[in-house]
């Protein structure tokens, strides 16, 4: 039961282990792939290779980043820590022999095993890790400055070429660089907004479900009102009435998504409330707060995690939509939605302007959807095979 990585490659530990360690020191993750754990292995390997290429090809920018702007320093830190993490993880992972793993198997490690068997979900996770790396490392990897306008008379709306792999836009800026920087906006807004809504939704849902009665009724009626609103229309109304900014967009997205989380959590809590372990907690005289925070919420979390992962994808689409209507992120900050909107007027003469930022949205959202689906299957004991 304790063996997490069965397979022929796992049979010996003596000399073969050292061979693996040598391979692992040069290419972390490769031994894990050979051992059949291609999910974690390929993540480590691709992070390692990506960072190594950056170190070799962008040495000048890395050195310049030491005294540069905060995002350049962050990129430098990401590079260093990423390399160390990939290498250290591989070494530690190989060092830990299978017999010394803890013998008890809890709900979460079962889910991890189930998840790592799902190839499409793991592919989604690898894609998400790569997109996050791109967002963090943008100052090091972009071929051009995303805000720099080249000569408007000669470089405007140029097609795909070696200097501008995805062409230039109507202000003669490099499209590829802007797409790479655009990942920051989408990921930040998606992550923070869903973080806000998952926190509020979980607490409100748990309190409503636990207390019941009039408080539950009032909260759930309010939830009904917010849910029955077309979310985009509500967003548009709010953003139009107030001054649009990234903070406002994040807040509004976060504060309009929580009702559906609250509804999920309340449903879970209503079931959990009647279970023996909660009654035992009551019998032990635990405070309401302790029962909610320590016992109800952790057990109601799996569906919240699934909803949050799918919610990030949804939120990225919504943010792109708001930016498309020029209600979201304001120029010149590169955002995928704004870029698609900019390309709208040049569809026939410069098809690449709208096409590639849109593809970036599609693949990012697809990655979150794949992981969300995988989590749903992995976290639900009934769906585990």
């Amino acid at each position, binding site marked *: 039961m304790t063996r997490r990585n069965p397979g022929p490659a796992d049979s010996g530990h003596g000399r073969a282990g050292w061979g693996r360690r040598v391979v692992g020191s040069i290419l972390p993750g490769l031994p894990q792939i050979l051992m059949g754990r291609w999910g974690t292995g390929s993540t480590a390997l691709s992070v390692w290779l990506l960072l190594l290429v950056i170190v070799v090809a962008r040495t000048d920018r890395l050195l310049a980043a030491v005294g540069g702007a905060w995002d350049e320093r962050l990129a430098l830190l990401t590079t260093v820590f990423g390399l160390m993490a990939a290498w250290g993880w591989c070494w530690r992972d190989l060092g830990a022999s299978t017999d010394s793993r803890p013998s008890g198997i809890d709900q979460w490690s079962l889910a991890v095993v189930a998840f790592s068997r799902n190839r*499409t979900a793991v592919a989604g996770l690898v894609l998400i890790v790569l997109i996050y790396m791109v967002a963090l490392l943008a100052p090091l990897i972009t071929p051009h400055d995303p805000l720099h306008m080249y000569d408007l008379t000669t470089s405007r709306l140029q097609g795909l070429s070696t200097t501008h792999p995805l062409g230039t836009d109507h202000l003669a800026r490099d499209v590829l660089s802007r797409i790479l920087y655009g990942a920051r906006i989408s990921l930040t807004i998606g992550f923070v907004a869903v973080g806000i809504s998952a926190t509020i939704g979980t607490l409100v849902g748990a309190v409503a479900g636990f207390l019941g009665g009039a408080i539950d009724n009032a909260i759930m*009626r*309010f939830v*009904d*009102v*917010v*849910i*029955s*609103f*077309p*979310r*985009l*229309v*509500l967003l*548009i*109304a*709010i953003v*139009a*009435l*107030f*001054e649009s900014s990234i903070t406002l967009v994040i807040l509004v997205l976060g504060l309009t998504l929580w009702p559906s989380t609250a509804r999920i959590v309340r449903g879970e809590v209503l079931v959990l409330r009647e279970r023996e372990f909660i009654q035992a907690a009551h019998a032990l005289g635990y405070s309401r707060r302790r029962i909610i925070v320590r016992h109800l919420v952790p057990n109601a979390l799996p569906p919240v995690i699934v909803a949050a992962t799918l919610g990030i*994808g949804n939120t990225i*689409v919504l943010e*792109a*939509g708001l930016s*498309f*209507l020029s*209600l979201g992120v304001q120029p010149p900050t590169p955002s995928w*939605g704004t870029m*698609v909107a900019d*390309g*709208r007027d040049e*569809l*026939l003469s410069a*098809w690449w302007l*709208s*096409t590639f930022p*849109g593809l970036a*949205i*599609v*693949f990012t*959202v*697809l990655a979150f*959807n*794949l992981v969300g*689906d995988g989590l749903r299957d992995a976290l639900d004991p009934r769906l585990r095979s």
Partner: protein
Amino acid sequence: MTRYVVGRLLTAIPLVWGIATLMFLLVHLAPGDPALQYITPGMDREVVEQVRANFGLDQPLHVQYGRWLGAMVTGDFGYSYSMARPVADVVANAFPNTLLLSGSALLLAFVIGIVLGTIQAVRQYSVTDSLLSVILLFFYSMPGFWLALMLVLSMSLFANAIWELPIWFPASGMTSADYDLMSPAGRVLDRIWHLVLPTSALSLALAAGIARFMRGSMLEVVRQDFIRTARAKGLPERVVIFRHALRNALTPIITLVGLYIPFLFSGTVFIETVFAWPGMGRTIVDAIGTRDYPLIMAASFFFAITVVVANLIADTLYAVVDPRVRYD
């Protein structure tokens, strides 16, 4: 049955009241004075006060709230100054167009979704199934406005001007320029021709969601005893699937109508903007551009009410279809 519908209608009333209150709070929480649009810098103080009084803005908040609710009940949504017409007029003109677009999209989405979902479930774990799953998830992850632009790019602009294909579709509008000169049959065809791209752009993501749901629902039904019985008594597979399984698998799909209508309306905002479709979504976007607050508020309120009504219809339909739902 009647009691059920009446009961549901009664629960919808506080919901509508809640929405109206939310809108009121939003308008009053927003910074700035709604009367500011009518006030020019050189105006006399007295005139400014008069303008504020004309809009009732000098009244205490609870009085304004009461007036707001009264106006909502009587259908008086104020005056749209950007369109120079009563808001109710603007909405009455735009709403049928949105209904046409979203209605045909809903229909198309359900047809595609049910067909593909059934194919997937019948051929579970086959190449067709996994290929369709990937393609559907791809469409499911796609922002509607981008799909719309890509359809315009490939099916309209490129198909017409560069590839010179025999079939292409118009990129904007509801009718051709010479619509008034057409025969009645030609008019219908012209309308459908203009509907093709916006409807596809609006419905494909929905269809993908429905197909995913349909596949799951169908797989659940196919495992049940009565399907085994149907097969055991020698019915052809076609009859088993279409007569016995499909009907039962469709029941939970109906709840999706209510669930998807808010998404559908959100979608129309983008699709109407891209295709210059003169509906509610585009009205809202234009109203934001001109800061026409009465129009923004009324259109949002109208959208929300439509969603409430649609949910009501979906619930009632569900109760009709599924005898297990009790009316009391």
